[in-house]
């Protein structure tokens, strides 16, 4: 029945790198990575190895009781590095909690990344210093923030773009659909970057989106791309393409990066309760780092120097992370009552004074001042 429209999600994803490291040609994407030289490939490789190492070290710190929780990105390095390396400093990222590789690319220090997870602060960095908002834990909420920021950029006549990162599960939240509506209506320069890592905690993507994810945005009037999220080159290319559209008045673009969460949802999760046994192995063959390494190898670029230098950087970053984490000071008690408001607030000022007096009552030296 031809007039019944059924959704169709492109079965294949855009690729520039096959799982065995072959460089595929794509008339559509090649121009967007034409400037990528050997050293850029090496840099992407280095990035991915380092963020995987950050991830492993943070996981270890959590296991050792130094972090309350950690949401690993293992397996999603290409999706995050490829997209984040396409950004300019004047762009702005609104992410979820798993985008630690994106934060790394935005210049956030490893220690700052950990503050939230160690529980010393609700956010680890000043968003304005890095062009990246602090992670949103409320699923999907940040897609509206990104859209609003982008509307503002358009009003300002700036050619900056906002990027909203979110997961496959997030696509079910009303906020994400509303963000698509507003982005389309106001032609906001925003890139919706969905990492479809196949799972939302224990729920497979098929529960959230039986018809697939990339097919959703077009119905809202937003062009959509489905990319192999484990192919760092293809991700870089499509993100550049989408950002270019945004900067040149082309409005929003939706990207589905098909990837895989190789670890647990967080360190508190036990995926053996729900994940089919062979799934991990299947995806291990499509590992994003291995893939780029194979390409580098085939091009003769995977030199001992690169390997050593990468290793050194990963080691030093991990060491910095560990030392930074353990060295994070506990916040001062009275900061619990600080910064609720930007301006003085009678009620809170009183509560702070009372609590300061209360704390002082325990201190024989009569210490803490309000």
């Amino acid at each position, binding site marked *: 029945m031809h007039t019944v429209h059924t959704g169709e999600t492109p079965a294949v994803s855009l690729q520039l790198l096959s799982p065995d490291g072959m460089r595929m040609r794509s008339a559509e994407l090649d121009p967007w990575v034409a400037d990528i030289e050997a050293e850029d490939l090496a840099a992407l490789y280095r990035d991915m190895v380092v963020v995987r190492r950050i991830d492993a070290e943070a996981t270890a710190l959590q296991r050792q009781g130094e972090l309350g929780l950690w949401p690993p990105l293992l397996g999603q390095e290409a999706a995050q590095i490829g997209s984040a390396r396409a950004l300019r400093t004047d762009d702005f990222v609104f992410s979820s909690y798993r985008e630690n590789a994106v934060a790394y690319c935005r210049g956030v220090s490893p220690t700052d990344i950990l503050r939230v997870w160690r529980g010393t602060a609700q956010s680890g960095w000043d968003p*304005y210093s890095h062009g990246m*908002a602090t992670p949103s834990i409320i699923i999907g909420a940040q897609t509206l923030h990104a859209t609003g920021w982008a509307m503002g950029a358009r009003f300002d006549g700036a050619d900056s773009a906002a990027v909203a990162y979110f997961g496959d599960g997030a696509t079910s939240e009303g906020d994400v659909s509303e963000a698509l509506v*507003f982005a389309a209506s106001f032609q906001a320069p925003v890139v919706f970057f969905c990492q479809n890592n196949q799972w939302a905690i224990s729920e497979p993507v098929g529960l959230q989106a039986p018809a697939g994810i990339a097919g959703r945005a077009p119905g809202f009037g937003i062009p959509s791309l489905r990319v192999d999220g484990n192919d760092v080159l293809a991700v870089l290319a499509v993100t550049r393409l989408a950002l270019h559209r945004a900067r040149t008045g082309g409005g929003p673009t939706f990207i589905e990066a098909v990837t895989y969460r190789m670890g647990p949802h967080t360190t508190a999760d036990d995926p053996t309760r729900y994940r089919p046994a062979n799934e991990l192995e299947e995806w291990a063959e499509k590992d994003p780092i291995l893939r780029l390494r194979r390409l580098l190898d085939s091009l003769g670029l995977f030199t001992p120097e690169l390997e050593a230098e990468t290793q050194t950087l990963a080691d030093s970053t991990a060491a910095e992370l560990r030392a930074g984490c353990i060295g994070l000071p506990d916040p001062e008690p009275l900061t619990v009552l600080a910064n609720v408001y930007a301006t003085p607030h009678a*009620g809170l000022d009183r509560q702070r004074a009372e609590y300061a007096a209360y704390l002082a009552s325990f201190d024989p030296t009569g210490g803490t001042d309000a």
Partner: protein
Amino acid sequence: MTMITEQNSSAGAANGQAPVPLTETKTLTLAKAINAGLRRAMLDDPKVVLLGEDIGTLGGVFRVTSDLLAEFGPNRVIDTPLAESAIIGTAVGLAYRGYRPVCEIQFDGFIFPGFDQIVSQVARFHYRTQGAVRMPITIRVPFGGGIGAAEHHSESPEAYFTHTSGLRVVAVSNPQDAYGLIRQAIASDDPVLYFEPKRRYHVAGPVSPELGAPLESARVVAAGTDVTLLAYGALVSTATDAALAAADEGVSIEVIDLRSLSPVDYDTVEASVRKTGRLVVTHEAARSGGLGGEIIAEITERCFDHLEAAPVRVTGFDIPYPPAKLESHHLPDLDRMLDGVDRVLGRRR
């Protein structure tokens, strides 16, 4: 049956008059005073933008934003799609970029789809980022009943927001405050819920171009010595009438217009209760969990030894908003306020 409806409660700008800049004291309706305040804020600061449903071409269902689209254009007066979470959520993004968004929620009952963005995002970004990110967002909400409207059009949701740390909440009762407080709300670096007493949109009063008393302050409307009667929004005028009626019977009521619901100006309230020893709080919102209980608990703590009697509440019942033909039984009116005064004076039959 006279029912104030969207059209006939229009602020009257439909007649095509351009908004008049306020340079001297003028008589304006409450709705027009807000319009004048919005306009002043938009002229003063190019970062002030308005977002909401039907606020542009139509000028809002109450015409509060009349003529602003024509003056400031579609990048500053934004007719948004029909989605409250997105109205608030995109305002957050705009604030992130340095804007001062003013969101209109069309009616009180339609704020709840945007509740998550208000409570989990707007209210918390400053605390979350240790002060790095400010949310100078104003959320305008026509509130309260008494207009004979259908469900969801007459609610008083303010207590949900006064329980939400990180927000400021104000409710205006007259054109002058409406003008001064909308400007202060927009100028505030904190998010402000700004409640507009919709059944008083039409009432006119003098408005000077001053900012008036600070955002956090209450106002003694009528001095008195026997009982302190606290009100806000539309009920301030009922409370003032009640005070006049009580005066005839020899009871001197001090009426206070709270203006700021969060924080409450306890200095002013406390001074009054220390003097009168008796407190009545009135609001349209449900009694349980309403602002009345909070204020009574706080005042009891601060003024226990000065209280002559237990403070009394005259409020809406613990019911969903009732059908129009029953709302007069739900809303505090002059008689119920006087009954509350009688009770606090120990004169209850």
